[in-house]
């Protein structure tokens, strides 16, 4: 599908676009050639930097790291979803005190960098005698920062549900709680599936600071490989490709899910006159 920002180009514009495409293609090709040439001159294509990728043990080690990454990402994702919904409920409460408290909580976790929170769990909390495995010192801060964002995502979804849906449910005799559970939330979640998935990508990327707490994730294991084989560029290159592939797969999944539910929830213009 064409991005719908511009109207269909006329003949003049088409010529301009063609010229622009040719020039930028040449420029990009030149940069690529230069990069590859530089790497070659520095001996980065030397077999000593790459031969260990031919060994199963290297891949097994990376896969173990990947499993660690997946474990943290999935756990953090699940916790963040649950907390996000919980925070959202607090935030939309009609009780001003409750709503105010959750507003502060949400903005705190949304605004704080997850690395800072990880340092807090890693350095501050243990000094009060609370012991926690590295897994949780990594997973909890990531969950918390993501839950702040997700709470706002869910709230946007709830607000996007036309108010007529609520009115119709109320006039059937449903209580406020039931309206929220049966009518509003199911629709709100469908609206925000794309944003939920992009937040999941952020969670996956956040896990890469695992080295701070010495948790063996993909990047941490990659660092071990780097020091073992003294080969920085090749290992980082391979690991970057793995991250990109994973996140690309998650995004594809998001697009597909959005398309599926999107066609189902399309509503006609919903306006209510005064």
């Amino acid at each position, binding site marked *: 599908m064409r991005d719908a920002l511009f109207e269909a180009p006329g003949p003049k514009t088409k010529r301009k676009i063609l010229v622009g495409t040719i020039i930028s293609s040449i420029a990009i090709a030149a940069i690529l050639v230069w990069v590859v040439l530089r790497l070659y001159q520095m001996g980065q294509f030397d077999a000593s930097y790459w031969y260990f990728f031919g060994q199963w043990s290297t891949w097994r080690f990376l896969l173990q790291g990947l499993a660690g990454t997946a474990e943290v990402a999935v756990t953090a994702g699940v916790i963040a979803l649950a907390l996000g919904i919980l925070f959202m409920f607090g935030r939309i409460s009609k009780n001003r005190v409750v709503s105010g408290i959750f507003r502060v909580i949400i903005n705190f976790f949304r605004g704080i960098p997850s690395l800072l929170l990880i340092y807090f769990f890693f350095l501050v909390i243990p000094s009060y005698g609370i012991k926690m495995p590295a897994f949780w010192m990594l997973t909890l801060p990531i969950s918390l920062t993501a839950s702040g964002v997700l709470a706002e995502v869910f709230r946007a979804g709830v607000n996007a549900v*036309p108010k*007529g*849906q609520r*009115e*119709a*449910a*109320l*006039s*059937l*005799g*449903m*209580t406020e709680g*039931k309206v929220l559970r*049966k*009518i509003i939330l*199911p*629709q709100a979640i*469908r609206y925000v599936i794309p944003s939920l998935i992009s937040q999941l990508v952020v969670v996956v990327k956040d896990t890469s600071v695992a080295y701070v707490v010495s948790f063996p994730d993909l990047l941490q294991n990659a660092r071990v490989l780097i020091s073992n084989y003294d080969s920085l560029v090749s290992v980082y290159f391979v690991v970057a490709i793995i991250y990109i592939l994973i996140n690309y797969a998650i995004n594809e999944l998001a697009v597909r899910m959005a398309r599926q539910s999107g066609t*189902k*929830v*399309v*509503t*006609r*213009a*919903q*306006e*209510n*006159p*005064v």
Partner: protein
Amino acid sequence: MIELRHVQKHFGDLHVLKDINLKVEKGEVVVLIGPSGSGKSTLCRTINRLETIDSGEILIDGKPLPQEGKELAATRAEIGMVFQSFNLFAHKTILDNVTMGPVEVLHRDRKEAEAEAMELLRRVGVAEQAKKVPAQLSGGQQQRVAIARSLAMHPKAMLFDEPTSALDPEMINEVLDVMVGLAREGMTMVVVTHEMSFARRVSDRVEFMADGQILEEGDPNEFFDHPKTERAREFLESIKGH
């Protein structure tokens, strides 16, 4: 059955309902008519408290309309409501839309509720669409489903808030036919509409509203043929062209 006494309401500085008094007896069909912004929709929506009121009283079967909680929900369950924009639950099938109330609110058995829902859908002529979702239906079909959804609750009265205003002209009659059928079966109805033919055919009374007040009330034929107030004459003149 429905009674409003000295009802007042403001939207900010705007005085939208000015000392409204209205009584609807069991089995009566009352049409609210008037220029846009006259407060007729708001009036209709106060009856099941989708709009709150500033002062005055609303009585349902002689009892004050509850202000909140389970009591309010229970009262709403007894009064059907049909909206201008249909408001079918977008994430549910047509059948689920109709069974939602009986199953979730009245705690009826799902199988039974579905059987009755199919009966209602047949009655309003959309039974073949039962497995579709609302967005796949035409406006007229959606509005008939909305009526079936209300009927599934066995309401003792029904409110219609401009039920045909969002419809393409060729779909208006299919909805009006269902409403005429209901009126003839003795349903108590409050209908906000501009459809003169409907008002003439089945309504017992027309209430003409302008600027938040009921200016004129009476027999529909009498009102449309010989309006008493200048305001009503102007209004009827302006909608005649349709």
